[in-house]
């Protein structure tokens, strides 16, 4: 068998080759990258990045003398000072600074000439007057700055408390930046957050208890939420949850007494009324020990253990925002309530009750006076090996009128990790809390998401991450992204501080890891992440020669650490019900253990219960019609009309839409919506088979035109004209691509366009301003490249073309108005007057492309140079490289990139922003920062049965309210990465963008270009790509390349237009526009002879011409 030896060896060799291939597949998916830091253009940006944290700020309250004794530098303020809203010093909206004249009850400003100008209420956003039962309260609009003057008797530190009344129906919270004497005292004061208050509208059952509405199949429907604004008093606290208690602000009189300081609030998000601001000396909450002592001193006894009240967690009295809502959970057969056949809302917080600042509150009364404990049936299965925290706030009886933390430990109510359900009694891990409640008093308890004792740890890691990020950037600047591991870069000589920092952070992270292990008693996977990172830092710090080799690992570990931080901050807790139970035995001991009857309050279902439940659920699943989900009796009663709507998105989106359709549209109009989720690409065959829908949502504009020209889409011009106010919601760039031959074929739903993303840190470090023009951008290239950085430019020739004033199409019929004929190549032609007829002239639009003009060719060359001369990469992973800081400038799709960065690059949160794309300065001196819009539309399909109802639906669906409602719902259900790119300009304002983000988006919205897609348009991008790649790969002259294709493109367009009997203009220039018109008149004559109605819609002039036309 010797002969097979060779064969075997060959076979094995080939096998190994194949194996390598297969192995490659599995490993290829894993590449990641991360990192960095930089800086931006302006000095202001640097200021933001370098601001001190509150930790640093508050450390200056005290100092230590030589003997090690603590000396207080800034004493607490002596007594409270109240700033009344009506004493406001000024309001500035960026243009003028307004003062208030109390005698005239009016605001005024001093104009440039020095004259005093009084303004009416409509002229200025700020207002002072009565609102919601209070006199003299001040409206703080969503932008501008309000300033007060305050006289402080002696240097001191004060906490600050504001009495406010939230406005607006958006689900975003109110955000303000605080300035003291023109300076933001510390970083967190930039984003002071005040929550709004929301209430669910529960229908009441016969006994007056809140319930949920049910659909025809017995599924419970989430109630709608309304804002329940009221005058609220809160202290300014840390929105990130790192510091418990109120912030203290220093007012330094520098030794003098009675010095006047200014205090300013700049709006970043949302508006509110302000009644007053109180500066007061802050007292820390008493300890639980003291509270127990107080119970004992008062002789308060335990309530009997039979004194129990229980309420369902899914029906909170109030919530901080609408993302805290009731949901259905079937993970246990003893959830309350539960049904195997229908979806009952039975838990709160299985999706998003995990972000700092969210809260839910409950009202209850107790049957007898005494001491009680509070237990919650809950599940915490997200943060393995750690615990999540809630802050308890109480109001009523001895706890006062406003919700307040009863004792210091209540900041850290702790819920340990358990994969199963548990009944947890509120406590901080060491002691279990007892509360004193009285019969007949109505109590309110709020549970706020908080970081608890983890706060410090998390902040340490966050700081550490920032430093590591900086180190990485420093190293990157020296070595580039792919360092040579055999080269000696001499790190410790070039950047000793960086190397030391690596070691310092190794110690920090190692310490944190040990601390966490001690806290939770075991080393979970969560903690192991920190060990991995700290070990790498150790290796790099102690062995300088390993720095280069491990740089890419460091990059990916920075990302891991970012993700770690993010998941640690998510304090999720799913709650089923809450039991307030008498303590039973008076002990005044912190170590009391609550004893709940296990039969009455089981933690988990028994084996038999679970089996029974699963089996019955399985069989019930055959009877549940998920398409009917959410349809209620009253809808069935009122619907006599029905339209079929298709959309091709995800299931989540479809469910949200279905909910909105049923609860808002059908309930109001009586038109039932049969919503079907289909896969993209189903539309064409269904139209072919005449099985199509009435309305289709989300079709891209080029398909709309493709379908429309083949009469598969119904023109909706008459409806648009009848409801012309709908046009106010959309700009031309969005509407334009849906117009063909003078008819509207759809209404825009979403829009996508490019914007420029920049890393504030990287730009600031390099001293580069955010580029406004392409020339600015090119100036920055050498600076970036010398730091081994690049710019990511997603190729978009049309963007350059429209900025330069070019046009994708040569002016067609609409351009040949009588005046415009003069001076053009068509001057003196016969048919100038015919072009007065809009319908007629629209047939002569877009006959040839405009890429052959000088502007177009120059622009193309200019764009190619970015890649050929300046070395911009053609292919790149924008999000990844932006995250690592290798590409501090990226021009990419705005909403898509934003969503991706929000979840994917958590470690650089706050270090980036987006703005308008760089522009081209035209000869008129103006900078055109045009971006190109891509639109998807809602359309009415041919074969629609009830066109009026369908239009009713379309009009409603694209309205600002519905669009923003949907967008906000997406964000609260799916998370901040589910921002919805609505095409409705007026909806944008109501969505959860910050004011800064909104302003940028809105201004780009104003500079979008309209690019109509016409028959044959598909060919354009194809050849454009060829022209670019030929010049890029082979160094061919771009102008020649593009010019060479113009003729080919025109030929295809002409061929395609002929298919639809549209007039054509041959590109050989032998033919003139008159020849086209001649030919078209002949065509019209021919068809009108067969069918006289064919000329409907044309002016008499055209009819006259056609009639008299002789071949």
């Amino acid at each position, binding site marked *: 068998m010797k*002969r*097979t030896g060779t*064969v*075997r060896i*060959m*076979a*094995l060799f*080939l*096998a190994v080759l*194949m*194996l390598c*291939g*297969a192995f*490659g*597949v599995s490993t*290829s998916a894993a*590449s990641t990258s991360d990192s960095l830091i930089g800086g931006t253009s302006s000095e202001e940006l640097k200021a933001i990045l370098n601001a001190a944290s509150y930790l640093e700020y508050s450390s200056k309250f005290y100092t230590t003398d030589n003997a090690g004794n603590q000396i207080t530098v800034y004493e607490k303020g002596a007594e409270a000072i109240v700033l009344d809203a009506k004493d406001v010093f000024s309001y500035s909206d960026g243009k003028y600074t307004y003062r208030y004249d109390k005698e005239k009850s009016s605001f005024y400003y001093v104009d440039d000439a020095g004259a005093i100008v009084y303004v009416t209420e409509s002229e200025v956003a700020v207002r002072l007057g009565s609102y919601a039962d209070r006199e003299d309260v001040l409206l703080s609009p969503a932008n501008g700055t309000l300033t007060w003057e305050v006289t402080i008797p002696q240097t001191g530190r004060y906490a600050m408390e504001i009495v406010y009344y939230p406005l607006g129906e958006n689900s975003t919270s109110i955000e303000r930046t605080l300035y003291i004497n023109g300076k933001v005292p510390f970083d967190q004061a930039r984003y002071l957050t005040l929550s709004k208050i929301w209430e669910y509208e529960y229908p009441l059952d016969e006994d007056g208890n809140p319930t949920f509405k049910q659909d025809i199949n017995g599924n419970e429907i989430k109630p709608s939420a309304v804002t329940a604004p009221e005058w609220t008093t809160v202290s300014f606290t840390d929105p990130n949850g790192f510091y418990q208690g109120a912030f203290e602000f220093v007012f330094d009189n520098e030794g003098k007494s009675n010095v006047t300081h200014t205090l300013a609030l700049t709006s970043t998000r949302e508006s509110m009324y302000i009644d007053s601001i109180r500066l007061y000396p802050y007292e820390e909450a008493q300890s639980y020990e003291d509270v127990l002592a107080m119970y004992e001193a008062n002789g308060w006894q335990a309530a009997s253990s039979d004194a129990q009240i229980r309420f369902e967690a899914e029906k909170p009295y109030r919530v901080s925002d609408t993302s805290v809502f009731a949901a259905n959970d079937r993970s246990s057969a003893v959830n309350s309530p539960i049904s195997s056949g229908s979806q009952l809302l039975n838990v709160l917080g299985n999706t998003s009750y995990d972000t700092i600042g969210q809260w839910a509150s409950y009202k209850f009364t107790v049957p007898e006076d005494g001491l009680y404990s509070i237990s919650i049936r809950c599940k915490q299965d997200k943060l393995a090996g750690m615990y999540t925290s809630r802050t308890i706030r109480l109001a009523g009886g001895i706890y006062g009128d406003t919700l307040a933390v009863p004792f210091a430990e209540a900041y850290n109510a702790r819920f340990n990790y358990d994969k199963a359900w548990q009944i947890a009694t509120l406590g901080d891990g060491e002691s279990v809390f007892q509360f004193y409640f009285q019969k007949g008093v109505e109590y309110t308890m709020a549970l706020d998401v908080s970081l608890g004792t983890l706060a410090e740890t998390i902040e340490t890691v966050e700081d550490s991450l920032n430093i590591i990020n900086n180190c990485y950037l420093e190293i990157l600047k020296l070595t580039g992204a*792919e360092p040579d591991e055999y080269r000696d870069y001499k790190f410790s000589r070039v950047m000793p501080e960086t190397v030391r920092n690596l070691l310092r952070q190794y110690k920090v992270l190692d310490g944190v890891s040990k601390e966490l292990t001690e806290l939770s008693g075991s080393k979970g996977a969560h903690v192991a992440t920190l060990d991995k990172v700290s070990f790498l830092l150790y290796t790099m710090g102690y062995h300088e020669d390993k720095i280069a080799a491990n740089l890419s690992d460091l990059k990916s570990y920075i990302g891991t650490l970012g993700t770690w931080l993010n998941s640690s901050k998510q304090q999720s807790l799913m709650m089923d019900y809450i039991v307030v139970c008498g303590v039973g035995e008076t002990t005044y001991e912190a170590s009391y253990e609550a004893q709940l009857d296990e039969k009455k309050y089981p933690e988990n279902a028994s084996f038999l219960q679970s089996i029974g439940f699963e089996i019955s659920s399985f069989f019930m699943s055959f009877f549940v019609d998920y398409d009917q989900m959410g349809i209620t009796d009253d809808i069935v009663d009122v619907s006599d009309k029905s339209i079929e709507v298709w959309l091709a998105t995800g299931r989540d989106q479809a469910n949200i839409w279905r909910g909105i359709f049923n609860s808002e549209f059908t309930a109001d109009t009586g038109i039932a919506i049969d919503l079907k989720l289909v896969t993209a690409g189903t539309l*064409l065959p269904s*139209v*072919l088979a005449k099985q199509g829908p009435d309305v289709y949502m989300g079709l891209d504009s080029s398909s709309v035109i*493709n*379908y429309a020209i*083949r*009469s*598969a889409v119904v023109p909706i011009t008459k409806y648009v004209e009848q409801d012309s106010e709908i046009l106010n919601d959309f700009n031309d760039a969005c509407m334009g691509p849906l117009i063909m031959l003078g008819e509207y074929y759809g209404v825009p739903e979403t829009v996508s366009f490019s914007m420029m993303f920049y890393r504030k840190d990287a730009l600031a470090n390099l001293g580069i301003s955010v580029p406004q023009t392409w020339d600015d951008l090119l100036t920055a290239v050498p600076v970036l490249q010398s730091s081994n950085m690049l710019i990511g430019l997603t190729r978009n020739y049309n963007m350059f073309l429209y900025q330069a004033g070019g046009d994708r199409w040569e002016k067609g019929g609409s351009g040949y108005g009588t005046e415009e004929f003069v001076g053009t190549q068509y001057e003196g032609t016969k048919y100038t007057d015919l072009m007065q007829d809009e319908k007629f002239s629209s047939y002569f639009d877009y006959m040839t492309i405009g890429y052959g003009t000088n502007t177009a060719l120059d622009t193309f060359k200019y764009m190619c140079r970015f890649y050929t001369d300046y*070395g911009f*990469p*053609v*292919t*790149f*992973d924008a999000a990844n490289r932006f995250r690592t800081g290798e590409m501090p400038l990226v021009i990419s799709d705005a909403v898509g990139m934003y969503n991706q960065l929000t979840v994917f690059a958590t470690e650089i949160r706050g270090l980036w922003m987006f703005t308008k794309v760089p522009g081209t300065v035209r000869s008129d001196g103006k900078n055109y920062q045009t971006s190109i819009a891509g639109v998807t539309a809602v359309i009415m399909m041919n074969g629609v049965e009830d066109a009026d109802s369908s239009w009713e639906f379309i009009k409603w669906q694209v309205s600002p309210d519905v669009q923003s409602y949907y967008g906000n719902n997406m964000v609260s259900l799916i998370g901040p990465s589910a921002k919805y790119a609505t095409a409705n300009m007026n909806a944008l304002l109501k969505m959860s963008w910050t004011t800064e983000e909104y302003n940028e988006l809105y201004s780009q919205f104003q500079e979008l270009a309209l690019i109509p897609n016409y028959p044959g348009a*598909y060919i354009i991008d*194809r050849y454009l*790509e*060829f022209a670019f*790649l*030929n010049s*890029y*790969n*082979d160094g061919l002259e771009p102008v020649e390349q593009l010019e060479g294709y113009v003729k080919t493109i025109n030929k295809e367009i002409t061929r*395609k237009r002929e*298919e639809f009997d549209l007039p054509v203009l041959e590109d050989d220039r032998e033919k003139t526009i008159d020849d086209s018109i001649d030919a078209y008149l002949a065509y019209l004559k021919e068809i009108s002879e067969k069918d006289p109605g064919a000329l409907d819609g044309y002016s008499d002039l055209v009819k006259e011409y056609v009639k008299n036309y002789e071949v």
Partner: protein
Amino acid sequence: MSQNEAVKRPVSRKDMTKWQWTWKEMKRNKTAYLMVGPFMILFFVFTVLPVAFSIFLSFTEFNLLEWPKMVGVDNYVRLFLDDEIFILACKNTLIFAAITGPVSYILSFLIAWFINELPPKIRAVVTLIFYAPSISGSVYMVWSIMFSGDSYGWVNGTLMNLGIIDTPILWFQDEAYIMPLCCVVALWTSLGTAFLSFIAGLQTIDKSLFEAAAVDGIRNRWQELWYITLPTMRPQLMFGAVLAITQSFGFGGVVTALCGFPSLNYCAHTIMHHLDDYGGQRFEVGYSSTIAVVLFVIMLGSNMIIKKALSKVGQ
């Protein structure tokens, strides 16, 4: 009397028309027809009808949404006389067919032959490894990662590290590389069902034939292969050949996935792509049916040639 004679005379083929005879035979064999019926109906509805319909459509102008218009042989005239890209596509298709067809066919056979020599357990494992690329659907995407135009693509990254190139090469967007790379990928993915059927065929060969042949004077393994192995597994060879042809002419999805659609300057544009272009993007189903018909004829023709060639095996 004559009546009686007539009754007694046996029924013969001559007494009936062709149709009557057929009908009679069908009744006689009705069980067989019943059994073949379900398949024939399905085959007719889902294979014969579409082909026939497609041939019909090739004489029309049809945009998928409106009723077809008859245009006679216009489509064929345009295809052969006024479509440069079609000629280019034919060239590319033939190149792909020549490579993925014969080369992969021979390669499949050789590898199958080698593997067949391995002990059964190892053979099973090695078979799986070779067959894996064609079962795991879009596994060829690994090539797009290896040859990504990004400077972080494996090949670009390696070449840049070695200092061979200083800017990334757009492998799948550069005319110089598209064709060679696509051929390599085509070969890599083509070891499919044909390869498996060869292994099966090799194992059905009766070992005693080899012994008999040795007695009859077969001198080496090549003779063994040519005179015994190949003729014995002619059915499998035929099966493999048909698959190889269909596969090589239908090669297109991989190119689209790797190079985008269409490939730069149509340099890897095949007839399949051309068909997609007109049918899918331009809504000219009439014209794309014409392309399909032409492709159909080419496949049919090459099938016949292969059949002829295979009949020569072993002679």
